[in-house]
């Protein structure tokens, strides 16, 4: 699913704010993410990363400001409407269909964009194009062997990989991942980073991540969110060197990492 080339950024946030009661969690964020860019959002706990993520994906409605996808304002749209505009996301807590097989999980995620929508006049097993596409994605995420297992019985790392598969299956050109490697061992993390790089080839990727290794490995640009504001948004190298970032957040993290 490719969109006609536009001059607009893939995702653009304009003076976005979000308050819960009196607490102002996001306090005016401006950010533009270009098409095809791999963008990481980092920041300390409680900085508002998940809130920002949920604002972009339509789970929360902004208090003020707006979210633009390909130049179109999506504030207040339902999650499914935003998805139909070409944005797909993963979740903080593994979010799959546990009582269906791996294959079904993938196939369900294909249906909308392959045009089946609410069809009750197609028999799903006869739609070979869907099945073929699902098999291809299974292959991409290296889960052909687990094809007929119930998703609920997979290992944690497998479920995370399946979730990536579900997220990219619909062919969205903006992929948003939330902590895709959380809770994984070093080797699993490496595997996951390679997988993400492979399946998001040529797409816009927005990833929220704790693991600085992953972030600096994967991202073209990094935005640092502290107390609901973006204090820096630049290439990994620049962010690493930024004094503001060091003071606010990264210093301690980087020192630990060294």
């Amino acid at each position, binding site marked *: 699913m490719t969109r006609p080339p536009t001059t607009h950024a893939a995702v653009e946030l304009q003076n976005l704010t979000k308050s819960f009661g009196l607490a102002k969690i996001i306090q005016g964020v401006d950010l533009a993410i270009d098409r095809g860019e791999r963008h990481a959002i980092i920041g300390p706990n409680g900085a508002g990363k998940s809130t920002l993520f949920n604002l972009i*994906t339509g789970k929360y409605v902004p208090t003020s400001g707006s979210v633009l996808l390909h130049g179109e304002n999506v504030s207040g749209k*339902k*999650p*499914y409407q935003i*998805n*139909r505009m070409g944005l*797909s*996301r993963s*979740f903080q807590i593994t*979010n*799959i*269909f*546990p*009582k*269906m*097989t791996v*294959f*079904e999980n993938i*196939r*369900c*995620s294909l*249906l*909308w*964009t392959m045009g*089946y*929508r*609410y*069809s*009750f*006049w*197609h*028999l*799903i*097993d*006869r*739609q*070979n194009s869907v*099945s*073929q596409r*699902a*098999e291809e994605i299974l292959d991409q995420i290296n889960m052909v062997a687990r094809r*007929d297992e*119930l998703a609920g019985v997979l290992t944690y790392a497998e479920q995370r990989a399946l979730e990536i598969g*579900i997220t990219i299956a*619909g062919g969205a050109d903006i992929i948003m991942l939330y902590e895709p490697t959380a809770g994984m061992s070093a080797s699993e993390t490496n595997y996951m980073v390679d997988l993400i790089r492979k399946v998001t080839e040529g797409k816009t990727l927005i990833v929220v991540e704790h693991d600085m290794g992953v972030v600096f490995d994967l991202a073209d640009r990094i935005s640092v969110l502290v107390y609901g504001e973006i204090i820096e948004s630049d290439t990994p190298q620049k962010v690493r060197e930024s004094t503001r970032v060091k003071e606010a957040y990264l210093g301690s993290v980087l020192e630990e990492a060294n």
Partner: protein
Amino acid sequence: MKHDTENSTVPSAAQPGRAPLIAMRSALPWIIAAVALALMPVVFASGSALTIMNQMAITIIFALAYNMLLGQAGMLSFGHAVYMGLGGFFCMHLLNQVEYNELYLPLPLLPLFGGLFGLIFAFVIGSFSTRRAGTVFAMISLGVGELIAACSIIIVVFFGGEEGVSGDRTMGPTVFGFDFASQLEVYYLTVIWLLLAALGMYLFSRTPIGRIANAVRDNEERAEFLGYSQRNVRWISFCASGFFCGIAGALFAINFEILTEENLNLATSGSILLITFLGGVGFFLGPVIGAVVFTLLQTVLSLYTELWQLYLGILFVLTVMFFPSGLAGLLAMHVRPWKIGKLGLLARPYVQIAGPGLIFVLASAAVLEILFHARHASIGAEQMSLYGISFNSHAVAPLAFALIVAAASLFIIARLAPALLEAWGDANHGDSP
């Protein structure tokens, strides 16, 4: 628990060409069912057996339609009788139009109209009730159910008050010489519609919307981020369910030639929930098993004991507690041992435990029957007979005997249970061939 076992039999996409509409392997059960249903009247020829089988067929359609909500889409409705009932009432009025106003409508087509009426009502009510799942949906369904049941008493013009609306199915044009006066002709009409409706519902579960309904049931938030409006998915499932409920209602109208308030009330809505759950919500065949067992209990067991509802209640509560996947789930548990060829391991412990088990059930029932008789029988009618034995229900000995037998058989069951569990473990252990 709700894993649809059908899911794993999806033909591989690697197969060349388009898969046939229904693969031969999956068509076989349908053909067997059709042949069996066609031959049933040869075995059970009496009018009442036909009536009971018709009743079963109608209940099966209704339960399958209900399971499109509960099992397939995860929506718990406490007022689903409304859609079957309204479909039936409309069909009854259509029948009366045929009789009095010479409307040309062959009887075999009536269920189609019943389905449409059910669909229309489900569309209207679903427009606001399916916005949310869970408790909110359950409560709205309860409220709407109560409202329409109450309306059926108030709006006499349409619902006929507590007498209901009756008609005569034989007044329409004859179809190939059949006027549907005989119970046998009605049986075949009902059974053909049963097969059509069941096939329709089965195929629906294998369409994109059917699969997405499962997805919304399991994880509505995730489904939204796949591009689907959870509300629309529920609404469509609800309408489809309403359509098949309407067919069941039309068949009810044809069979009983009367529709009353009880076709709409909460007791009917409750019993379809009971039937579906008893059979097993996670399996396509679950509601079928539930409907057959329930109809037998209701029409047959009630001939023999006043306590049938007590037994039914106990059975239901035990099912919810110990076998939440229902009777079909119980059967499905044996699929794996069967597939890996170890079902034989279970035969011995099953046979061993069957005797004490049966004795325990009979003795427990005896305790209840004796207590009930002792408490409610009239003086002078202290004699009761149970299992062909006559005795005085007010004496201590029979009750004590029944209690001792029950306790003893329970003790034996407890002794045998570890062996059964061990065999069960063995039978499930091992690789699939």
